[in-house]
C-alpha cells in the first residue's frame, strides 16, 4: 500500500490507524460519548457492563466517556502547544539563518543557554506562581519547546541556503519572502513534518506528566494524565481503571512514533543512498 508515493510498512500502518482512531475520538467526543464527562451516573468503581463499557470511576462517572473527552483535551492541548512552538521556532530559526550577523549570534547563544537548562524545572517555577490555567500552560510550554524547533529550523535553513540554487535566486534579484517560500521551505518540509510529530509526542507526554503530578489540567475536566492520578488509589485492588488512560497515552505516543519513524526512514533513504 502506498501513501504520498511511498510504501507503507506495517508499523507505519498501525501507527496511522492508531492516530486516526484517536483523532476521531477527540473530534467526535461530544457525539460519540454515551455520557457527559462530569456527570455522576452510578456508584464509584462499578464494574464494566453493557451500559458502562469500561466501568465507573472514583466518583461514579463513566470511564469510557471520560476517555473520549480526555482525548479531546490531551490531544487538543498538545496540538495547540506544538503548533505554537513550531510557528515561533520556525520564524526565529529562519530569521537567524538568513539575517546572519549579530541577530543570528544573539538568538543562537540565547537558545543554547535555554537548551542547557531543564524545561521541566522552569515549567514548575512558572506554574508555582501562576497556577495552572490552561492558557498559561499552553504559552509556557510552547515557548520552552520552541527552542528545540529553532535549532532544527535554523540548521535546515542554513544548510539549504548554502546550496547553489538558492544563490541562483539571490543573484536573480528575488526578494526574501519568495526565496523562503519557494526555494527553502519546500525542501525543508520533510524533516520539519517529522519533527512536528516528535515535538507533539513530547508535549503530549509532558502535559500528561504535569497533570499526573497534579500540576496540569485540573478536575473536573477530563484529561488522561489527571485521570491516571485520580484512579491510582485502586492499583492495589484488581480494578483496571488507571490502566485505561495510561494505556491510551502510551498507545497514542507509540502510534505517532511509528509514523514519524517511517517518515524519517523515507527521507534518509532518498537523500543518502544515491551513490
Amino acid at each position, binding site marked *: 500500500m502506498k501513501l504520498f508515493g511511498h510504501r507503507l510498512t506495517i*508499523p507505519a500502518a498501525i501507527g496511522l490507524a492508531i492516530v486516526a482512531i484517536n483523532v476521531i475520538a477527540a473530534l467526535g467526543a461530544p457525539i460519540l460519548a454515551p455520557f457527559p464527562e462530569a456527570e455522576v451516573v452510578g456508584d464509584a468503581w462499578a464494574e464494566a457492563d453493557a451500559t458502562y463499557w469500561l466501568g465507573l470511576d472514583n466518583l461514579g462517572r463513566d470511564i469510557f466517556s471520560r476517555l473520549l473527552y480526555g482525548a479531546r483535551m490531551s490531544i487538543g492541548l498538545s496540538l495547540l502547544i506544538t503548533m505554537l512552538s513550531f510557528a515561533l521556532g520556525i520564524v526565529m530559526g529562519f530569521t537567524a539563518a538568513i539575517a546572519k550577523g549579530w541577530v543570528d549570534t544573539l538568538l543562537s547563544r540565547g537558545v*543554547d*543557554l535555554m537548551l*542547557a*537548562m*531543564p524545561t*521541566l*524545572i*522552569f515549567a*514548575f*517555577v*512558572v*506554574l*508555582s*506562581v*501562576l*497556577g495552572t490555567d490552561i492558557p498559561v500552560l499552553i504559552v509556557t510550554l510552547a515557548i520552552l519547546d520552541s527552542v528545540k524547533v529553532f535549532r532544527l529550523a535554523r540548521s535546515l535553513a542554513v544548510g539549504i541556503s548554502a546550496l547553489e540554487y538558492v544563490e541562483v535566486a539571490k543573484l536573480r534579484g528575488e526578494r526574501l519572502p519568495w526565496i523562503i517560500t519557494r526555494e527553502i521551505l519546500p525542501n525543508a518540509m520533510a524533516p520539519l513534518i517529522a519533527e512536528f510529530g516528535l515535538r507533539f*509526542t513530547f508535549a503530549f*507526554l509532558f502535559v*500528561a*506528566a504535569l497533570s*499526573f*503530578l*497534579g*500540576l496540569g489540567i485540573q478536575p473536573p475536566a477530563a484529561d488522561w494524565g489527571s485521570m*491516571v492520578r485520580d484512579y*491510582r488509589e485502586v*492499583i*492495589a485492588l484488581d480494578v483496571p481503571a*488507571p*490502566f485505561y488512560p*495510561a*494505556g491510551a*497515552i*502510551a498507545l497514542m*505516543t*507509540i502510534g*505517532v*512514533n*511509528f509514523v514519524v*519513524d517511517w517518515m524519517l526512514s523515507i527521507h534518509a533513504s532518498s537523500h543518502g543512498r544515491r551513490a
Partner: protein
Amino acid sequence: MIRLIALRLAFGAMTLWAASVLIFAGTEILPGDLATALLQNSATPENVAELRERLGLNRPALVRYGEWLGHAAVGDLGTSLSNERPVASELAPRLRNTLFLAVFAASIAVPLAVILGLLAAIWEGSLFDRGVNMITLMTISVPEYLVGYLLVKYLAVQWDLFPALANVTQDMELGERLYFSFLPMVTLVLVVVAHMMRMTRASVLAIMASPYVEMAFLKGLSKSRVVIRHAFPNALAPIISVIALNLAYLVVGVVVVEAVFVYPGLGQLMVDAVSKHDLPVVQACGLLFASAFILLNLMADVMGILSNPRLRKPR
C-alpha cells in the same frame, strides 16, 4: 584543546548563573503581584502586606537577587512558606534520597544500554537488532507512570515481591534501602535504557559506515577486531555524549517516578511545593536540579572534547 575546555567551562558557569537568574526572575516578570499570586484565595490586604514584608518584596529586585544568591552560596536557602522551617534542612535528606535512586538506576542502565546498543549496531539488520529496535521504540513512548504502575500491579500487588510504596527512611541499612528502592529504580532504568540504547546504536552505526572502517575490512581484519580497534575509539565521544544527555534526562524523570512510588526525594518535595505555592522551596529545588542538569551536560561536552583525537593533537 585546553582553550576549548576552558571555554566550555566558562560557558557552563555562565549557564549556571543564567539559570539562577531565570529561576529567580521567572517569578518577577510574571504578571500580577507576587504576594497575591502566592496567597491565591487567602489574599486579604493584610495577608498580602505581611507576605510582602516577609519576602522583602518592597525592596528592588536586584538587591533581593543578590541576597538570595549570596545566601544560597553559603547554604542558607531561606525559609519555607508552608511550614516555617529552614529550606536547607528539609532539602538535605531528600537530596540524598534522590541521588541514591539516580545513582542506583544509572549504574545499571548505562552499561546495559551501551552494550545493547553496541551489539544491535554490530549485528545490524539481524533479528536481535530489529527486535530490540521495536521494543525500545515502544518503551520510549510509554510514560513512566504506566511502567511504574504496571510494576506495582504485578511485582508488588499480585506477586508481593517488592513494596508498592518506597518508604525509605533515614536510618535504613543499605540492603533495606536497596530493597525499598528497587521498583522505582527499575522504572527509571526501563525508560532511560531505551533512549540510551537507541542513541548508542545510531552513533555506532554512523561510525561503522565510515570509509576507514571499510578500509579496515579491506585490510583483512576480522569484524570483532574492526569494531574494537577501529570503530570503538571513535565511538567513545558520541557514546559519552549520549550517556550524559540521558543522565540529565534522568534527573528530570526522577520527579515523576518519585510521585508514583511516593519516594521521599527532591522531586516529590518540589511538586508539593509547587502546588502549595511555597516559593523559596521551589526556587531552591529548581536551583539544585538545574545545577545537576547543567553539570552533567558540561561533563558530557568536556569528555567529548577529551576523547576526540583530532582535538587532542591539532595540526
